[in-house]
């Protein structure tokens, strides 16, 4: 990152990049890197390898230092650091992993820059996002993992993992051959949290599909307006946890959306269309989401904010992520949140807010996204959840066999620590985990983990090297922007079809500009 400078006037910064190894085009030679895209070493003959094996056939590691970049920052980063510490302890004297955190928005450019321009500083193994693997793999940054897995002699079989995600980690190299580029770790997405106590008190049930979901929202909004809505603010303002009745004319918006949150965008703008049958990308990795199903879905959403025919609006949007106090007060009933937040909410609900122990279980339902946005519940895509996954990749700067093997040993180890890792909200990719008593009896799993969705339902949405442009999550483009404009008061005059077409052409034009 240090070589990606702030922009100064007159291209000074640009040229910084130019004076890095690799040469300035036309000024110096670029010979030193001409062969970088050559196929990775194909031979694993032990004679010219630096890796040795002991009598049991296990590889011998002696003080191997691995640099590991992780994209998990925040609370799951802390959990991961603990696991890494545990690993370092177990492998003391053999392998030592130095973990460093990279922010999501700098991850790609940091990796490309260091691997190409500053290989000494480049990490050996990285934990990135599976759905974005293609972006970096297409730049020739990563090594295929098969050889390393073989060297490490770990127990790896394709059948051990959920195929719906793992298959997306197999990517084509320049020669057109498929290789594994990401060692699967987990998959995750947002969930909907709902005020179970309020829903039930008002005579509804926690919804499990789109129809029920909308019915509950509309029913609660109508009751509030008619003065029949019963709600229970938490102990901060309501020490006895009494049930109160809202006065008539109260405008209740049960469904809250954080319009600027990337994870909410993934839920509402991507998972929604996918559940309704839209494919995100075509064979060439170009956006293909400009379908009638997408248009229908967003038109439907728009009516929930700008209803016709005397219905009440049920959606509220805000830029802020800070919805939780309104959720406590009973002003919002359904909110989308990352599973890694649940531990914190649980603590607050259980004690500080005053529902007492078990308050969370009593007051809050966790609803996975499956079926929630599908207008046709019977369609095969209705239960899909577009999630993100974490996977380990080897950078092409790893040259020694020992290091390659050590990396795989580390990745394998990490993928087996699901009992700890699920506390970050991440569902294990190993099928075996779901039969492991240690996980199934884990208190966190019982209270939270089991409600996060089924791994079989997850998808990465469609693999493309233009992930940023197709989904437009960070850049307010693509479906993310369609979602925004669906609700934006300034774009009420535009039909959803026009919005979708505009954004589609916009995504295409950005991709075209890279050619």
């Amino acid at each position: 990152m240090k070589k990606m400078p702030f922009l100064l006037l007159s291209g000074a910064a640009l040229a910084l990049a130019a004076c890095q190894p690799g040469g300035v085009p036309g000024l110096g030679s670029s010979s030193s890197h001409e062969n970088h895209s050559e196929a990775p070493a194909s031979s694993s003959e032990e004679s010219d390898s630096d890796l040795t094996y002991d009598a049991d056939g296990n590889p011998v590691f002696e003080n191997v230092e691995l640099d590991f970049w992780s994209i998990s920052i925040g609370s799951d980063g802390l959990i991961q650091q603990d696991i890494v510490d545990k690993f370092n302890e177990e492998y003391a004297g053999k392998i030592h992993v130095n973990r460093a955190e990279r922010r999501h928005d700098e991850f790609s450019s940091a990796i490309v820059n260091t691997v190409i321009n500053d290989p000494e500083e480049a990490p050996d193994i990285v934990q990135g996002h599976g759905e974005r693997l293609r972006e970096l793999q297409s730049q020739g940054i990563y090594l295929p993992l098969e050889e390393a897995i073989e060297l490490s002699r770990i127990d790896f079989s394709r059948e051990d993992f959920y195929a719906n995600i793992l298959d997306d980690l197999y990517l084509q190299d320049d020669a057109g051959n498929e290789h594994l580029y990401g060692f699967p770790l987990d998959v995750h997405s947002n969930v909907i949290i709902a005020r179970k106590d309020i829903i039930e008190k008002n005579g509804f049930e926690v919804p499990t599909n789109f129809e029920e979901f909308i019915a509950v929202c509309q029913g609660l909004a109508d009751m509030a307006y008619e003065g029949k809505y019963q709600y229970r603010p938490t102990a901060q303002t309501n020490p006895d946890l009494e049930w109160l009745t809202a006065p008539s004319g109260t405008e209740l918006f049960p469904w809250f959306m954080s319009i600027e949150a990337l994870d909410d965008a993934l839920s509402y703008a991507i998972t929604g269309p996918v559940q309704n049958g839209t494919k995100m990308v075509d064979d060439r990795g170009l956006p293909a989401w400009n379908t009638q199903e997408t248009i229908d879905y967003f038109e439907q959403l728009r009516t929930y904010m700008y209803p016709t025919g005397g219905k009440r609006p049920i959606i509220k949007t805000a830029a802020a992520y800070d919805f939780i106090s309104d959720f406590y007060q009973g002003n919002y009933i359904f909110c989308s949140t990352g599973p890694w937040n649940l531990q914190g909410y649980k603590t607050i609900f259980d004690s500080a807010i005053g529902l007492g122990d078990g308050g969370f279980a009593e007051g809050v339902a966790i609803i996975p996204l499956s079926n929630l946005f599908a207008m046709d519940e019977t369609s095969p895509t209705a239960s899909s959840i577009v999630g993100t996954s974490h996977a380990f990749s080897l950078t092409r700067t790893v040259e020694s066999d020992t290091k390659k093997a050590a990396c795989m040993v580390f990745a394998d180890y990490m993928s087996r620590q699901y009992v700890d890792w699920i506390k970050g909200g991440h569902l294990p990719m190993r099928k075996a985990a779901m039969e492991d008593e240690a996980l199934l009896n884990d208190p966190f799993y019982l209270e939270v983990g089991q409600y996060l969705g089924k791994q079989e339902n997850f998808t990465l949405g469609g693999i493309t090297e233009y992930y940023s442009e197709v989904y437009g999550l960070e850049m307010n483009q693509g479906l993310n922007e369609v979602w925004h404009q669906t609700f934006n008061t300034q774009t009420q005059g535009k039909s959803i079809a026009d919005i979708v077409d505009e954004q589609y052409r916009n995504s295409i034009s950005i991709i075209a500009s890279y050619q």
Partner: protein
Amino acid sequence: MQSHLKEKIAYYLKGYSVALLLLLPFLVSFVMFFVVPFVSGINMSFFHYNIADPSDTYFVGLDNYSYFLFTPEIPVVIGGEPLLGPDGEPMMVANTAFYSFWYSLLYTFLFALVIVPVSIFLPLFLASLLKKRPYGYRLFRSLIFIPSIFAVSATGAAFVYIFSNSEDGFINSLLGTRIEWLNTPLSAWFVIFLLCLYGIGANFIILAAGLENVPRSLYESSLIDGCNSFQKLIYVTLPGIKYQLSLCFFTTLIGYMNLYGQNRVLTMGGPSDFAHPERPGVTHTVIYVIQDYLTGSGKFSLMGRISAICIVFGLIVGGLASLRLFLDREKKGGNRHANEFKAYFEAKKAAEGR
């Protein structure tokens, strides 16, 4: 004749070696961080240059320039295959680089048109008030200057809360309104404008110092010549601080041509121009666009084009800056009046002689 070259070199070394030594750290970094990057940036702009893949580098001539300067539409060709539109024809799409560059340039200029006069005349007005030495003027002087020493990111963060779009924003909750300050083009620019006003302290100091140096006798002389306040401003104050004004004008202009921090912190380049989706967000400035290209995505093959944009924009700003040399040149008198004078008295003499 002897050349005395040796002595000459020794003489100059003696005279300038210390100066050279002291200049060295600057010279080295100047060459390293300005000259070399600048030259290679120009060079790079004539190439397709991919930092992710240096082998993917080839000469393209002026293509990078014409791409964003003159190409509003581009065909969609992915991997050598054209993408077909719904009508079966090869699809043409708007060239975002073209629109981003020209519209951000337009926005940058329009904003500079507003902010530059304000950030000169407002501090000038304040400085002239303080020149009257009101009670506590030292305090006022500091108060006017202090905001400009705060980092834009810090004050910007405060502004984000003050002008938050939701009803919880300080201003919205104070007024009980729900104005989307940062979401409508004019008000977004207005908030950026306000944040920019935080930086007037430097101009204030320069202009205040300039005002102090306008000779008092000129004011007195103009009083005796019968000037009113406005004429005093026109004939004495403004000419008296001509160089300070020109310095402020050009540094401010160049500064705001490079506007980036304020709109980055406050609006992230938004809000979008919904009527024209091919255009950038209405608070995109040229630097913002360039920075977007540099860091926005994982695409690294655009370095040649980015360099070209930088070079063109650098030329525009450099051109503006060199205007100063032209405007600040000292006027020479000529001899119009002198000739008229001669003719006048010759004619008079002739008339008398007749």
